[in-house]
């Protein structure tokens, strides 16, 4: 009896296919310096910003000056699935977790190209591994 039981259990285990997937996506480059240390409102100009942070991902022109936008995007995904893929195609259990975060820096200039204000958000530090 036990001769039959173990292979049968193995077959059942192989039939109920289960697995996990981990995905990582990185788009763009990290913001190169801490803006709070490098930017001085009313003093830092466009040339300084370009040499410190490099070219922005996006530039928007407004009537009272330009806006530079820097962004670094990351996505972590984890998935765990137990399913029977051969006969019923039944998913018995599925767990998925997707986190999309970005570091985001927006710099506002006046008409003379001097920093008028800026906003900085570090979303990537909120990413958890799983």
């Amino acid at each position, binding site marked *: 009896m036990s001769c039959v039981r173990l292979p049968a259990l193995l077959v059942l285990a192989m039939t109920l296919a289960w697995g996990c997937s981990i*995905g990582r996506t990185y*788009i763009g480059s990290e913001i190169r310096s801490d803006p709070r240390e490098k930017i001085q409102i009313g003093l830092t100009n466009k040339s300084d910003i370009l040499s410190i942070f490099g070219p922005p991902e*996006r530039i928007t022109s407004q009537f009272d000056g330009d806006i530079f936008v820097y962004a670094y995007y990351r996505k972590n995904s984890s998935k765990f699935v137990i399913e029977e893929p051969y006969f019923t195609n039944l998913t018995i259990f599925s767990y998925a977790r997707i986190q999309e975060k970005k570091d985001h820096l927006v710099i506002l200039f006046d008409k003379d190209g001097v920093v008028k204000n800026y906003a900085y958000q570090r979303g990537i530090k909120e990413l958890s591994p799983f």
Partner: protein
Amino acid sequence: MNMTLRYIPRVLGVLFLSVLMTGCIVGRYYEGSTIPEEKIKEIKPGITTKEEIISWFGPPQNYLTPTIFNQILRELDVTREPVNYYPFANILSYQYNRGNVRAVVLILFNYIEGKVKSDHLVVFVDENDKVQYYGFYKGTDELR
């Protein structure tokens, strides 16, 4: 007891086979022309002209259709509009994108990693068609 011990090699064999049945995926993606770095050192604000920039680096991308990379960024809501589509002509932008994808596909575990990095040059030109300021970043160096 002996019966159970007899099956241990078989179970180990199945586990060993499942580890052996693995696959690797490697992908490389290149978009745009490389930016000639030796010419970047020659850019002098107040001296270099727009014509020189165009002759060194070619037509800027804000005169071309937005790149696929920027369309992806827009879809991901990283940027809401094509990055290089500036509605004014005093900014010349050049971008070279590279993407690396690698994956390990096992029976019970998959790991997929994708990275997209860019070399980006942006040049601001004044009303006399002279370079006002510029910025360059070589993001593709971050790809291993």
